[in-house]
Structure formats: C-alpha cells, structure tokens
C-alpha cells in the first residue's frame, strides 16, 4: 500500500487490495446462497422420487430423466419407447426461439447500422429510445402485444378500416403470435451489441473496397459483416437464450396448445402436473443447453479477439 501513489501509473489499481475478500464477502454470500446453492439443490432434486401434489421423497432415482426421454407404458413395465412429447416441446422452443431471433436480426441489424452511422451527438438519444422498452415490465409488454393482436384488437380493426383485409387475421394462440411476442420482448438486445460493433468499425475499409469496385452491398457483405460478426452473434445469443426459456410469451400469446420449455417447467410447480423432480430435470436440461451455447459463444468471442 505505502508509496503506491508514485508508481501507480495505471498498472493495476489496488488501493483496497487488503480488504478485497471482506468487500466481496456479501456478494459471495448472497449469490452463493440464493443462486449457486439452489442450482446445486435443484440438480439433487432432479434425481429424487416425486411426491404427489408437489415436493419429493429422498430416494435416489433416474425416473425424472427417464420419463423425459422414454415411454414405458402406463404401468412402467413395457419395453421403453422414445417419448416424443417432451422432446417435441424442447424442439418447438428451439425452433420458436430461432424464428424470433431471425426476425429480430432482420429488423435489428439495419436499425443498429443506421443508428451507428448517425452523427455522434445524436447516437445516445437513439440508443436510449431503443433501450426504454426493455426497462418496461415484460409482463405489461406481453399483455400489450396480446391486446394489440386480438381478433377484435386495434391492429385488426386498423387493417379492416384501411380495406387491406375483410375479416380479422387470427394470430393469437398460434405459433406466429409466440414468435412475434418473443421477438418483441428481446428486440433491444439485438440492436445494442450490433450497434456497438458497427460504431467501432473503421469505414475506411468499406471505402477501400469501393475503390476496388466493390458495390455497396458487396462491401457490406464481404467487408463490414465479417468485422462486426462478434456483435451480430452476441445480439443473436442475447435474443435466443432468453427466448428459449421464456414463459410469458408462450403462456399469454400461445395459449394452451403452444407449449414451450418454460410452460412445461412452470406446470410442474405451479400447475396441475405437480412433479418437482421432473420439473427440476427439465430445468437442468434447459440450463445445460444454455451453458453449452454460452460456452461456444465465449470460445468464439475469444477466437475473434485473438484474430483481432
């Protein structure tokens, strides 16, 4: 500590080095007890026997995972067949989240690019406008979307009034409604990282490409896009991951037929199914999927950084 003032020079700030473990202790305790330990207990629960009407019996079993992947008949004595119900629910989530991500990319990329090429003074205002909706309650935004998309909702009324359609378009309680809901929920997440990447991009590269007779669109695809790819991937991850485990959009916009992972899990704890180990197992599978995606993403970002 003593004499650190003169040699500081930005090497590594360390005024509070002596206290660092004390300073970290509260965050370790709170996050350890309320996030990390619970995930561990959840893992254990996924291997326990279910108690009817919620809760568990402390007996080790693989039943929860077995039920997820295999169908052994009503009494569990038939030869195992693949159980498609839950795999299909996961598949639907993977697909729905993918569609929402693609939609967000189509709208989000041009938006991010446009904002990043505005004069420097007004960019923060644009970014702020894009961010505000994210801070508005997700539940309220999803309810608003439901209100807007209803058969007798303002959107259909408007389209009928303009004469574009004669009868209301039925969107609510379909896959499309869920995709729109997910897209709407996480759109700002797509714009922000792409914006950050394009803002750092050196447009001299595009100009050089143009000098070498590349058209504007070729310059975009072959020069700009590879440079901002880490930002694009980050945006896709930030939309895809929360979409995968979403509960509100499928529940409020998809109706009972359009189950996704989030609804399946929720039903084990809040709904009638009441199978805690199974819900814990489904959560573990979801968590594993997300961690794999994040790990691949971290590796990809590290590689992109090395390549400069």
């Amino acid at each position, binding site marked *: 500590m003593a004499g650190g*003032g003169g040699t500081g020079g930005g090497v*590594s700030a360390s005024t509070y080095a002596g206290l660092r473990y004390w300073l970290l202790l*509260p965050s370790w305790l709170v*996050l350890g007890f*309320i996030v990390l330990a619970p995930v561990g207990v959840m893992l254990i629960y996924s291997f326990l026997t279910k108690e009817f009407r919620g809760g568990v019996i402390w007996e080790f079993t693989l039943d929860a995972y077995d039920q997820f992947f295999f169908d052994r008949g009503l009494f569990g004595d038939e030869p195992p067949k693949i159980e498609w119900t839950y795999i299909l629910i996961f598949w639907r989530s993977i697909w729905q989240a993918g569609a929402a991500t693609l939609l967000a990319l189509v*709208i989000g990329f041009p938006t991010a690019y446009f904002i990043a090429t505005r004069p420097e003074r007004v960019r923060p205002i644009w970014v702020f406008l894009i961010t505000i909706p994210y801070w508005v309650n997700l539940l309220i935004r999803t309810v608003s979307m439901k209100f807007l998309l209803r058969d007798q909702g303002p959107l259909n009324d408007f389209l009928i009034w303009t004469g574009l359609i004669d009868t209301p378009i039925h969107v609510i309680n379909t896959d499309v409604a869920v995709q729109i809901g997910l897209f709407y929920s996480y759109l700002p997440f797509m714009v922000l990282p792409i914006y950050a990447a394009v803002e750092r991009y050196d447009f001299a590269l595009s100009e050089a490409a143009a000098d070498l007779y590349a058209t504007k669109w070729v310059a975009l695809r072959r020069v700009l896009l590879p440079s901002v790819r880490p930002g694009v991937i980050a945006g896709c991850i930030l939309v895809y991951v929360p979409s*995968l*485990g979403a*509960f509100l959009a499928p529940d409020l916009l998809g109706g009972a037929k359009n189950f996704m992972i989030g609804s399946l899990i929720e039903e084990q704890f809040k709904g009638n199914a009441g199978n805690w180990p199974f819900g814990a197992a489904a959560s573990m599978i979801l968590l594993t999927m*997300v961690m794999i995606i994040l790990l691949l993403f971290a590796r990809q970002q590290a590689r992109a950084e090395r390549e400069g």
Partner: protein
Amino acid sequence: MAAGRNDIRTYRGFGTVTYLCLFILYAPLIVVAVYSFNASRSITIWEGVSLAWYRDVFTGPESAKFKQAAINSFSIAAIAATLSTMIALSAATALVRGGRFGLRTLSFGLISLPLMVPEIVTAVATLIFFSAIGFTRGYLTILAAHIAFCIPFAYMPISARMQGIEESYEQAAMDLYATRGQAFRRVLLPMMMPGIVSGFLLAFIISLDDFIITNFVKGAGVETLPTAIFGAVKQGIRPNIMAISTMLLAVSILMVTISYFVSKSDDAR
C-alpha cells in the same frame, strides 16, 4: 453531406427499418396507454376519454388488492435495490480497486450468474431451495430472491463508473494523510454518485418488474403488482388492468430517464 445517397455508409431502406423498429417497440405500449383512458366497459369499443378506470384502480372493488400489491412491490423494490446496490458497490471496490488476485474471475462470474442462468431456472432453483431448507414462502423469500438477481444490474453502472475514475485521486488524498476509509468516503464515493444512483434505479426497476421469479417464490396470499396483473389477465384483459399497467409503465420510463440523465450529466464534465 453532398455525397448523400451514394455515400458508402448509407443504405437505402435502413432508415425506414429503424423507424419501423421504433414503431414496433412503442406501438403496443401507446395503444394500451390510450385505451386505459377509454370510457367504455368494453375493451374493443372506443367511447371517449375518461379517467374512470384510474378511479376504479384506487376506489373500485379491487382497490384493496391492488393497494396491498403496490405496497409489497414498492417496499420490496426499495429494500432490494438499496441492499443490492450496497453489495454491488462493495464487490466493485474489490474487483476494480483490489488488484489482481486468483478469485477475481470467479467472483466476477458469480456476480454475472443471474444474467446467464435462464430466469425460469433461477425461479425453480430458488423455490426448491427455500422448500428444502424449510423456509416458508412469502414476503421474505421474494425479498431475498430480488436482492440476489438485482446485484448484477446494480453492479454494471457502478463498476463502469469506478473504472472511469483514476486511482490517483484517492492516492493523492492518502498522500495528504487521509486514511483509506476517508479517501473512500470523501473522495471516491462523491465521484461515484452518478454510478450509484444509476445502479440503484436500474435495480429498483428490475425488482419492480420481475414476474417469473416472484411468481415461483411468493407463496399463497402475497402478491406484487406483476403477479396481481398476471392473475387478473388470466381472466381476460380488463380496462382497470390497462390503467394500472400504464401507471407502472410510466414509473419505469420515468426512472430509466432519470438514470439516463444522471449518468449523462457526468459525461459532460
């Protein structure tokens, strides 16, 4: 500017998509806000402007329920934001001003954990954990969960702000015989204020807005505004729900705006 349309940086249509993007983001919110002033009992027919549904929220048959939910929501948000901001400030001081050490990366990972684990998984895990240790679900379990997942949101602006302040200020104070505690309180803390306020406000909104985790850990009988709204919406969207949503929406936007200007004001220096 003369280059205009043929400028290599401009792509035709991108501007249109941007305005479309803003329209998509705001249209549903504006529509609900407008319809919350509808005089009609029906949510479909427009019968003119009225404050009837706002009056209904405060004095109608469900007003007691909403009032209790609002008290729960705001008190939990205030306590959770205060505590998570203090925890985040303490952690940021260690991670930004504590030199290099082995547990640094791990600690940072732990703080970002609530951002990486899907919300529904955190919700399930917390519910199971409270049940396993025999904790009765209610106000306190909601509060505990909120403190935890608000930490990363409070941490981000606080650590960004601290990284932007050179350590030489505190070193100078200590060279002039200030103790480390004095240097922190009298030098670092005042300069940290914009980051702290911004972190507190973001944590407050995140707590106020949470539905998924609250819904899992709340137990019977304790409602927050989002869980009360969700319960009501399950019976169908009614005008009083739109009024209450509009108010909540206004609170969130107000707080983000304050947070934005607080962090912007110090950029200007």
